[in-house]
């Protein structure tokens, strides 16, 4: 019988030390071959959307140029041109359809990346090959992450071009005549802000990273997809509804000439002397006793005159808002923290794989 006391030969450390890690490029084919179906699906979706926005964009830019150049502006023909431009507003829900792209990429490229290996047991094959488990994971996540982020960035640039006519050159809407403004948006509009600039690519990367981590934690494809959709949607709503407005301290004004393109966060009446918020019941009482000529037809208040009336009675209206000029600072802030979050999630994923917690 052999005895256990047999001395183990020391590892040939010189030989092992010469063992250089295998080149990363070996993973290129592996990653492509295993994920080409998902990548092709993403490509088809994005190309279809790109064609839509390209065709619609050409028409939109043409209509905008025609409406702006028309002279004399008040003529019936010019009004028609403006109306036809304004009528194009709302195409594909103003691009809102693009919001599903990061979610789909997170769910169908990110989540199955590790969950499928863990669910089907193929990780036992993949992680015992010479390439090594954590390098295999890192190569796949980085390769696919860069690919989907670049694709999202490209469609985002195209969408920005498409949407450009809706942003007037100044901070106020253009009026062809007194009654007819040309359709315009604030770049901060929820559901629009994160489709342009760097935000869309960053959201796509974050959704992908959420999916990958969900896959490694949940280890099953379908639950990981569901979790990714839930977490991504929750995060997107939380950021759009609560977080984004706090990136920079908003401007406060007591005036009424707030730019049309600004993002108005709150508007409230204060007692001018004390600076305390005015109670809504006080305001209502004051308005009830206001002279009748303040109100327009059907008792609807005309905002300027009501505003003047209340100001005269010792109230001040304060508006907090984010000016449209802060679009790019906000983009970099949002892109920056989403990138940091994605890097963190990917690092946690690789750490979990490396630590053999999986």
């Amino acid at each position, binding site marked *: *019988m*052999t*005895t*256990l*006391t*047999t001395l*183990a*030969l*020391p*590892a*040939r450390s010189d*030989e*092992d030390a010469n*063992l250089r*890690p*295998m080149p990363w490029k*070996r*993973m290129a*084919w*592996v990653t492509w*071959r*295993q994920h080409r179906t998902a990548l092709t699906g993403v490509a088809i979706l994005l190309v279809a959307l790109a064609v839509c926005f390209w065709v619609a964009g050409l028409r939109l830019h043409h209509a905008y140029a025609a409406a702006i150049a028309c002279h004399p502006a008040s003529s019936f023909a010019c009004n028609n041109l403006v109306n036809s431009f304004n009528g194009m507003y709302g195409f594909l829900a103003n691009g809102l359809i693009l919001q599903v792209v990061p979610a789909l990429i997170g769910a169908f490229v990110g989540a199955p990346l590790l969950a499928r290996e863990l669910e*089907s*047991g*193929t*990780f*036992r*094959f*993949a*992680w*015992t*090959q*010479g*390439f*090594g*488990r954590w390098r*295999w994971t890192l190569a796949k996540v980085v390769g696919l992450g860069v690919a989907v982020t670049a694709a999202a960035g490209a469609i985002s640039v195209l969408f920005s071009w498409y949407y450009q006519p809706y942003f007037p050159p100044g901070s106020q809407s253009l009026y062809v005549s007194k009654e007819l403004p040309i359709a315009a948006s604030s770049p901060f509009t929820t559901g629009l802000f994160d489709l342009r600039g760097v935000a869309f690519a960053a959201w796509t990367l974050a959704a992908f990273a959420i999916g990958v981590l969900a896959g490694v934690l949940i280890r099953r494809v379908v639950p990981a997809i569901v979790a990714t959709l839930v977490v991504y949607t929750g995060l997107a709503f939380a950021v759009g509804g609560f977080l984004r407005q706090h990136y920079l301290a908003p401007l406060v004004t007591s005036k009424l000439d707030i730019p049309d393109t600004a993002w108005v966060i709150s508007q409230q009446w204060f007692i001018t002397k004390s600076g305390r918020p005015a109670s809504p019941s006080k305001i209502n009482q004051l308005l009830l006793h206001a002279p009748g000529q303040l109100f327009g037809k059907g008792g609807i208040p005309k905002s300027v005159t009501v505003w003047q009336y209340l100001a005269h009675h010792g109230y001040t209206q304060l508006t907090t808002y984010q000016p449209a000029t802060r679009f790019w600072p906000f983009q970099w802030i949002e892109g920056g923290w989403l990138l940091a979050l994605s890097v963190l999630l990917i690092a946690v994923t690789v750490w979990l794989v490396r*630590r*053999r917690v999986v």
Partner: protein
Amino acid sequence: MNVVEANGLGKRYGSTRALRDCSLAIPAGHVAALVGPNGAGKSTLLNLAVGLSAPSEGDLTVLGGRSPGSPAALDGIAFVAQDTPLYKNLSARDMLHLTHNLNRHFDQAYAEARLAELGIPLKRRAGRLSGGQQAQLALSLALARHPRLLVLDEPVAMLDPIARHDFMATVLTAAVDDGVSVLLSSHVLAELERVADYLIVLSQGRVQVAGEVDDLLASHRVLTGPVAEAATYSESPVVHVRGGEIQTHLLVRVTADDPVPRGWESHPVGLEELALAYLREPGVGALPGPARAPDADQVEVRR
């Protein structure tokens, strides 16, 4: 060199202890069989050896002192996991190319020749191959890496007798011709008798028996004698008693040269019978001396 060496190795999953206090040294150049009932910790031990999981306690080295999962260990060990997981939607050719890309050494010509020999079409998706062909494909991928140690987890459990025979023949050829050390776990004791020359019996997370098959067979005999005297037999440690109506069979730890008591007959024992006897007596151990010596209650041989 020991291809696998464990010292006080333990693995816990939550509160369950899959392995406890395992000490082992499997020398190179063997086809080592790992047997044990379900839940004995066979897969756990193999997963630890290939670096898929990390020990909770104690230590484990492979290929002469290397740590499992290290680059050198990954290079030198090929693993075919239970149910031979392959990417079902990849063709056999893609599986070869994939494995080629993931390893420093991959013998493309060998792999292609083997698949041709087995009649496995390169174009066919792995998922559409029969169970036997999938197992053979997984084995070919492993062997084309020319590993120093081949680890197989229940490789033939799902195969029909012919596929099982062919699979084992391939393993044996690799072991004999290329000098690949093999560590395989299996339920199929009869199959092991043909290929294994080293035996490890695991039971309840502990190593119960470990040693070269020839040594084990030479140190055990079956004694056949009258039932009435079975209870009083005490000359040598008894592993297992298999009683009949008139005669009783004792698996005893003696050599062929040891004296046989009057009225008893001594027969050699087969590997399957030996392994079965130990599996039925989880409390009895047959281990290389020093490793278990302090742990007296485990070494104790009971009737």
